[in-house]
């Protein structure tokens, strides 16, 4: 029997963006407040899982045509690249650097290379978790 999912799907279309924006906020706030790459990645995964619950696997794959194994790979490369970029400047492995920049909209902002490493963690968490859920949830 086919059930009527209008309420669930309409709510998902609204709530997905709230969760996704909050995950982005958690990711960027990680340096000064609780949060960071891991929690942000898990929240993004939660938003995507909500999409998977409300729609089916094929629709979500059409809407997000990424291969999430490759997303994991990009995340690992980003983390390794940030860690080994310090070797170029003749400082120990994993040495981070930061400086204050004046950005057009944000004013004076302190940009830190630890954020790039965090972005790597974020991509690895999202890629690995979605890969696990998609391979468990699939029929074959």
């Amino acid at each position, binding site marked *: *029997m*086919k059930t009527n999912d209008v*309420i*669930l799907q309409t*709510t998902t279309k*609204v*709530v997905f963006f*709230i969760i996704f924006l*909050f995950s982005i*906020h958690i990711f960027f706030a990680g340096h000064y407040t609780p949060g960071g790459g891991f929690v942000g990645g898990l929240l993004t995964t939660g938003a995507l899982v909500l999409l998977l619950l409300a729609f089916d696997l094929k629709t979500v794959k059409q809407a997000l045509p990424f291969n999430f194994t490759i997303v994991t790979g990009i995340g690992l490369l980003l983390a390794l690249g940030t860690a080994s970029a310090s070797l170029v400047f003749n400082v120990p492995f994993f040495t981070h650097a930061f400086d204050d920049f004046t950005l057009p909209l944000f004013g004076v902002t302190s940009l830190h290379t630890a954020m790039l490493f965090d972005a790597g963690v974020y991509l690895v968490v999202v890629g690995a978790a979605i890969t696990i859920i998609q391979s468990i949830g699939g029929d074959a």
Partner: protein
Amino acid sequence: MTVIANFLIVVTILVGLLFTVVAVIGVLRLPDVYTRAHAASKSATLGVLSILVGVFLHFWWNKDHISIQLLLAIAFLFITSPIGGHLMGRAAYLSGVKPTKLTVGDDLAEVVKKAKQSKPE
């Protein structure tokens, strides 16, 4: 002014607490799954919302910090909590949970029967 502000905060949080307790009593006392879902989804939503509003006002008036996350949480709960109640009630009905003996009518039964006949999956 601080006294009025603190009084309002305490009243909001106490109202939230009261509604949460009422939700718990409703879940324990009511006869079947639908009336329990009715008690749990509505009173618990309003209870948690009031507590969050109280916390938001406390941080706004006493600490001078407007927490966007709390506003987001209030909106989020207000949207999602009734949907959770709706989905659980529907899942219970479709998996054959019988309502209490006091029920007089069941309009959904005919619709479900017709849907089952038209699409035998």
